[in-house]
């Protein structure tokens, strides 16, 4: 409680068992048995630099040398920045062909910083005083006097404001303080428009042709051979459109062709065209592009969390954290021989959300 008690208590604590045992056992020899006696600091040992002035001079020169090297390295850093062309590539043995400028800047700045640190450490270890000193913490509690003053102040304040007797003011004030944070909560509504049906719909619609992402040409069934992998986007979506990234993030399509006899899921086979299956490329776990396709096993693997889907079995989840199979797009071929979609995905693509159902 009292401010002076801190250090004293510490001392009492250390000697407490000894004192108590001394009273009960009434022997001085008991004090010798105290297993927790504070051994105190060992006697101070001088360093070589403390007793030998020549060693101290040597240390001084070493520290000064390190600081000088740092200065030179900084000058070299500036010189390299000015002199070396940014495109210059040099071969440096273990690293290979690296940028000369990057290498020079890294090495010189590294030396400049390291030698400052090394100099400071060498200085403090060899020349600065190494006598251990104890600095006691100041007491945390305020003095009794200060405490009494602040209590009196508080009492005077409540009396003068009459918050205790004027009940209507006290209650309305509490009401106002309770309500005012609601304003901030209401503002959260303005964080953005509600998602609406954006999570459920993609750009795919009945009649949209499947466009090859590589060539921008509509795909024909004959282009897609067994064992091949291709990526398609819906007709009308062009790279560079202002909404391209938003739309492709939902509509990205992965096309594979599997021998119809190898397709285990009948519905999946019906939704494809002669073994060509069109699956969403967006993982149903957290929406990574899932397209590590193994053409012999028909497994497709997500690079983020290793969810594995079996494309020959309706993109069933074989492994990993994904919760749903990849949605499949119904496709068929039109009179001109091009593949087109028979509608949008019949379930939301990508990761689950609260209202997905």
């Amino acid at each position, binding site marked *: 409680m009292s401010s002076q008690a801190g250090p004293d208590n510490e001392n009492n604590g250390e000697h407490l068992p000894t004192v108590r045992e001394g009273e009960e056992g009434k022997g001085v020899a008991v004090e010798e048995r105290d297993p927790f006696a504070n051994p105190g600091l060992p006697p101070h040992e001088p360093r070589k630099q403390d007793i030998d002035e020549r060693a101290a001079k040597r240390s001084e020169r070493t520290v000064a040398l390190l600081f000088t090297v740092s200065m030179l390295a900084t000058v070299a850093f500036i010189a390299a920045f000015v002199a070396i062309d940014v495109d210059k590539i040099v071969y440096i043995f273990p690293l290979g062909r690296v940028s000369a400028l*990057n290498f020079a800047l890294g090495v010189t700045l590294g030396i400049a910083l390291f030698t400052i640190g090394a100099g400071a450490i060498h200085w403090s270890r060899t020349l600065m005083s190494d006598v251990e000193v104890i600095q006691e913490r100041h007491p945390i509690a305020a003095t009794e006097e200060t405490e009494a003053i602040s209590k009196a102040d508080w009492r005077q304040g409540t009396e003068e404001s009459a918050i205790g007797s004027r009940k209507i003011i006290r209650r309305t004030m509490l009401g106002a303080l309770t309500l005012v944070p609601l304003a901030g909560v209401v503002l959260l509504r303005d964080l953005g428009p509600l998602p609406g049906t954006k999570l459920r719909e993609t750009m795919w619609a009945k009649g949209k042709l499947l466009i*090859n992402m*590589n060539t921008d040409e509509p795909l024909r069934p004959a282009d897609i051979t067994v064992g091949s992998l291709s990526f398609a986007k819906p007709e009308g979506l062009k790279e560079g459109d202002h909404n391209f990234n938003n739309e492709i993030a939902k509509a990205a399509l992965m096309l594979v062709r599997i021998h119809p006899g190898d397709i285990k899921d009948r519905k999946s086979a019906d939704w494809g065209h002669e073994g060509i299956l069109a699956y969403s490329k967006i993982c149903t776990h957290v929406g990574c592009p899932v397209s590590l396709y193994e*053409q012999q096993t028909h497994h497709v693997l997500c690079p983020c969390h290793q969810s594995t889907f079996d494309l020959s079995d309706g993109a069933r989840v074989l492994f990993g954290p994904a919760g749903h199979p990849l949605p499949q797009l119904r496709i068929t071929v039109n009179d001109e021989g091009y593949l087109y979609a028979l509608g949008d995905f019949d379930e939301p693509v990508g990761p689950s959300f609260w209202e997905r159902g």
Partner: protein
Amino acid sequence: MKKLSARRRHPLAALVVLLIALAATGGLYATFAPTGKAQAEETSQSLAVEEGQKLFRVGCASCHGTGGQGSSDGPSLVGVGAAAVDFQVATGRMPLQQQGAQAPKKPNIYTQKEIDQLAAYVASLGPGPAVPEESQYDPAGGDVARGGDLFRTNCAQCHNFTGKGGALTDGKYAPNIDGVDPKHMYEAMQTGPQNMPSFPDKLLTTTDKQDIIAYLDEVGGDEAESPGGFSLGGLGPVSEGLFAWVFGLGALVVLTIWITARSAKARKS
């Protein structure tokens, strides 16, 4: 003669006799055996097919069947084309050393002429992609930037952004593409070896393939530049972060311990 009979009970005598007998038999066979009727057909193509068939029977038929029709140990080779043979054999993946998750790259034991003969034979089994011309896969003829785009769309999911490769399921993996012959890159894209999907010309045109090869040559070829120095396998921020936390911080901790462990006192305890 006395010298010879004195050594007839030497432990190695039997071995010497055996070697002499084998050499004699082999020599006699080589002298009197009927010579091959390879000269009968004159065109070099059919000659290559015939030579290829002989090589096929020795090196490939045990798994792929005597006519390349496939067996329980290996797929049918009808229609895989010369490009597939050139890729698989020239990179040493075939003949397979043992069945496993995936055929690894290993030193190739065939000459290019023998590979061409094998390829001609397999191509004769059914139509398939031919070995590409150098003008199709020369990295100098490709657009590096466009190739990077195409690589990230079609290939990077398995082979990593700069072609360093990565793991797949059950011990399979996408190999590192650094230093691979551009011809083999082209053939791999076209034929889809093992679990790699194929990218036929209609899906990824010959120009697209050349652009991808140009990109891979830029980031992983012999002359590839790494301006930053330590690429740490080119595996992205995860490996870089791991290196900084484990080795960078580890080195600092070790250095700190080393500094404080050494006593600065004149009298060493």
